[in-house]
C-alpha cells in the first residue's frame, strides 16, 4: 500500500462503522436476526412496516449498544429515537428509525496499537434496511439493471453506527482503527464483525488540506468498502484524486462516491449536488431510553478484556521489542489465551508467541482448540533440541489438525532426536566431503557455515538440530 508521498498535503479521514448487533431478534420486533435465511422468511408486520404496525425496542440491543459505548469510553446518556425520512425500496416504512441529536453514546475515544488515539463522536442505535438485488444490466450493479428484487430479512436488524472524529491521518491508520474497532465489538460480544457477511460495514469520509492549515477541506464520503484492504486502497485513490483537483486550483465537490473493487477507483454517485433532506423528527411511536442500573449491569456483565489490555499482557510476558506484529496477529486470531496458557504450562514465551503467530496462524480455527498443555510439551521438545524448528512446525500442524501428543507424533514421523554420535558421523562426513569449504570456515569465513550446515541438514533429512550442528562445527574449528 502506497503512502502519499506529497508532504505538502495532510489527509483528514473520519470513519463511520456500522456493526450489526448479535441479538437473537431484530431491533423492534421478535423476528430472528439471522444471516443467510431464505428470502422474506424472517418477517412480520413490524419489520415489514405494514399499516398499523408499531416498533417495540429490544432490550438486548440497548445493552449491547451500551457495552460498545463503555468499551469506547463514551458518555452513556438518555437517548431518544428519530425518524430519518427517505424513499428506497429496501426501506419498509420509507423512513428509518435512528437516533439523531440525542444518541445513546457520545464523546469516546479509541487507542490504536501504535499508541495513537482517535476520538469517537458518537455511537448510536438504528435499524438496518432490507437488501435489494439488481437483475439484468451488468454485473448486478444498479445502473442498467432492468428491475430489482427486495428481501426484507435484514430489515430491522439492530445496528450501532460508530462515528469517529476526523482524527485519522492516513490509510494505514484508518485500517488500524477499523481493525481495532472490530476487535472491540467482537471482544464485548456485541457483534461478530464479519465484513464479508455485512455485519461490519465501513464508510470513509476523506478530505485533504495543505499541511498546517486549520480549516478542513471539502470531504467526500466513500462507500462500498468490502474489506480493510479496500478501505486502504479507496483512501489512497481518493486522496490522490483530491490532491490533483486542489493542486490544479479547482474545488472538490462534496459528494458520495462509490469504490469499485475491480478498478480501485472511486466514482461519483449520480445526481446529488445537495445534501438529502431527511426531515428528522422525534419518533412518536417510541419513548426515551434512560440508562438505568439494570441496563448498566447487563451492559457491563459482558465486558471482556479489551485488545489493548490483551496486548499489554502478552507484551509483559515476552517483552515486546521486535515482536509487536506477532502480538497483533495472535490477538487478531484469538490465540493469545493459547499462548498465555502454554506459558503457564511451562513453555518459553517468545517461542510460544512465534509459533502461534506464524505456524498456528495458518490453521487458526483449529489452533484455537489446541490443548495448551500439548502445545507447551511440543515447545519444550523444541527448546531442548529434541526437535528441530522444522520438525517442530510439522508436529504442530498435525497436533492442530488431528490432536494427539507431540512425543508420539514425533516418534511416528521418525523425528527422534539424533543421537549425538550420529550427528558426529554426519558432521565428519560433510567436513570430509567439502575440504575447501571447511578450510575457509576454519579460517573465519562465517558465510560458508550456512552452506556446511545446509549439507548436514540434507544428509540427515532435516533431523539434525540446527543449534547443535552449529555448535559441533564450532567446536571442531
Amino acid at each position, binding site marked *: 500500500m502506497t503512502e502519499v508521498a506529497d508532504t505538502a498535503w495532510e489527509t483528514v479521514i473520519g470513519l463511520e462503522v456500522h456493526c450489526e448487533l448479535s*441479538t*437473537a*431478534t431484530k431491533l423492534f*420486533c*421478535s*423476528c*430472528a436476526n439471522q444471516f443467510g435465511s*431464505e*428470502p*422474506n*422468511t*424472517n*418477517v*412480520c*408486520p413490524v*419489520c*415489514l412496516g405494514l399499516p398499523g404496525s408499531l416498533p417495540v*425496542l*429490544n*432490550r*438486548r440491543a*440497548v445493552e449491547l449498544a451500551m457495552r460498545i459505548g463503555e468499551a469506547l469510553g463514551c458518555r452513556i446518556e*438518555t437517548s431518544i429515537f428519530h425518524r430519518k425520512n427517505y*424513499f*428506497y*425500496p*429496501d426501506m419498509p416504512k*420509507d423512513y428509518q428509525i435512528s437516533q439523531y441529536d440525542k444518541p445513546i453514546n457520545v464523546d469516546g475515544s479509541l487507542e490504536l496499537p501504535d499508541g495513537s488515539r482517535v476520538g469517537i463522536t458518537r455511537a448510536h442505535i438504528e435499524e438496518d*434496511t432490507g437488501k*435489494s438485488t*439488481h*437483475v*439484468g444490466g451488468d454485473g448486478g450493479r*444498479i445502473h442498467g*439493471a*432492468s*428491475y*430489482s*428484487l*427486495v*428481501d*426484507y430479512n435484514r430489515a430491522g436488524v439492530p445496528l450501532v453506527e460508530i462515528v469517529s472524529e476526523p482524527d485519522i491521518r492516513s490509510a494505514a491508520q484508518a485500517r488500524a482503527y477499523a481493525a481495532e474497532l472490530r476487535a472491540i465489538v467482537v471482544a464485548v460480544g456485541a457483534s461478530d464483525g464479519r465484513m464479508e457477511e455485512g455485519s461490519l460495514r465501513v464508510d470513509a469520509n476523506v478530505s485533504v488540506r495543505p499541511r498546517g492549515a486549520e480549516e478542513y477541506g471539502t470531504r467526500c464520503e466513500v*462507500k462500498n468498502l468490502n474489506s480493510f484492504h479496500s478501505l486502504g486502497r479507496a483512501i489512497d485513490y481518493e486522496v490522490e484524486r483530491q490532491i490533483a483537483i486542489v493542486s490544479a486550483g479547482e474545488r472538490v465537490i462534496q459528494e*458520495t462516491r462509490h469504490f469499485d473493487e475491480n478498478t480501485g477507483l472511486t466514482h461519483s*454517485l*449520480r*445526481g*446529488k449536488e445537495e445534501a*438529502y*433532506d*431527511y*426531515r428528522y*423528527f*422525534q419518533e*412518536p411511536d417510541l*419513548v*426515551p*431510553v*434512560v440508562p*438505568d442500573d439494570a441496563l448498566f449491569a447487563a451492559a457491563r456483565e459482558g465486558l471482556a478484556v479489551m485488545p489493548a489490555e490483551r496486548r499489554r499482557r502478552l507484551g509483559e510476558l515476552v517483552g515486546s521489542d521486535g515482536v509487536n506484529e506477532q502480538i497483533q496477529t495472535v490477538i487478531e486470531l484469538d490465540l493469545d489465551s493459547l499462548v498465555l496458557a502454554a506459558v503457564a504450562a511451562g513453555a518459553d514465551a517468545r517461542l510460544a508467541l512465534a509459533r502461534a503467530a506464524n505456524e498456528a496462524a495458518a490453521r487458526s480455527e483449529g489452533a484455537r482448540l489446541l490443548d495448551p498443555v500439548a502445545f507447551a510439551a511440543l515447545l519444550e521438545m523444541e527448546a531442548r533440541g529434541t526437535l528441530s524448528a522444522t520438525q517442530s512446525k510439522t508436529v504442530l500442524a498435525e497436533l492442530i489438525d488431528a490432536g494427539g501428543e507431540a512425543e508420539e507424533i514425533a516418534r511416528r514421523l521418525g523425528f527422534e532426536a539424533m543421537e549425538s554420535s550420529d550427528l558426529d558421523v554426519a558432521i565428519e562426513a560433510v567436513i570430509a566431503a567439502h575440504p575447501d569449504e571447511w578450510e575457509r570456515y576454519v579460517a573465519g569465513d562465517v558465510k560458508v557455515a550456512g552452506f556446511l550446515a545446509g549439507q548436514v541438514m540434507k544428509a540427515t533429512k532435516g533431523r539434525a538440530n540446527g543449534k547443535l550442528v552449529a555448535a559441533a562445527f564450532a567446536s571442531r574449528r
Partner: protein
Amino acid sequence: MESDGGDGSDVGGITLDEGGITLDEVRHVARLARLDLSDDEIITLQGELSALLEHVDKVRRLDTADVPPTAHPLPLSNVLRADEVRPGLDRDAVLAAAPAVEDHRFLVPSILGEAP
C-alpha cells in the same frame, strides 16, 4: 396574500417572510413527498398551502423563548422487549399481497440511484 403569475416569480408579493409558498417550493415539496403532480395540481396546491400557512402563522410568530417543545404527551420511558424469537408471518401470505413478486422477493422496476 396574492398569488403569483404562475411562473414562479415573486410577482404579487409572496415572500418567505410572509409565510407563503412559491411554486418552486411546491414542486420541491412534491418531490420530497414523492407525489407526481400535474402543473394544475401544483398551482392549486400553492393557493391551498399558502392559505393554510397563513392560518397557522400565529404559531410561527409565537414568542416561545424558554418554552421547551413537547413531542409527545406521555411520561413513559424504557419500554423494552425481551430478546426472544417469536414466529412472524408466513412468507406466502406476505407475498400474496405484493404487486409483483419474483423468486420469493418483492419485484420493483429498476432503482435509479443508490440509497441517499
